[in-house]
């Protein structure tokens, strides 16, 4: 199980702020993305603008995601 958190415009696009994915093996973030898209197709058009965090730290698409991890979907930040 991987917990997926969504923020800002990504939460709007998915229609949810949080969901869980069944994951029995270790994947890369890049391999996880199609599962997110399948579950919430509204995310697809945003793909190129998104950043990701695994367990609270920015992650690249070749970084690993293991069962029990928390993955955050982050649109372009706009603080300040």
């Amino acid at each position, binding site marked *: 199980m991987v917990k997926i*958190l969504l*923020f*800002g*415009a990504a939460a*709007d*696009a998915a229609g949810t702020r949080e969901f869980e994915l069944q994951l029995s093996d270790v994947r890369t973030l890049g391999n996880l993305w199609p599962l997110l898209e399948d579950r919430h197709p509204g995310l697809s058009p*945003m793909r190129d*603008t998104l950043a990701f*965090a695994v367990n*609270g*730290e*920015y992650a690249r698409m070749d970084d690993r995601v293991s069962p029990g991890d928390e993955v*955050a979907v*982050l*649109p*372009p*930040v*706009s*603080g*300040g």
Partner: protein
Amino acid sequence: MISAAQRPDCGAISTFIGTTRVDESSGASVEYLEYEAYRPMADRKLEEIGAEIIERWEVRHVSIIHRIGRVDPGGASVAIVVASPRRGPAFEASRYAIERIKEIVPIWKREVWSDGYVWVGSQVDTRPLSHEV
């Protein structure tokens, strides 16, 4: 924040207050701004920015507070206080802090208009007519 930054070994305290600017378009206007954060990560990224500043400049004190939730137009959304023995590093470091906040801290703001809202920086909105943001 300012009194916490006062120290005998520092001759300069630089303060930066970011406030919410709103623009008007097509008869509608922004009623307020709403900030959300990926909380534990945002706190950690703010701490990282403080650590980067201490490493790069002769700075003895950094404190940064960012509001989340609703902020009315013209209200303060972020405050940065930096103390340094000299004014140059204090000015430079506080500029660096606000630029880094806008780059790496997972905080998002949306403009809430009378007729919908706009996620700033995402080109995603719920307002009825398509428009540039």
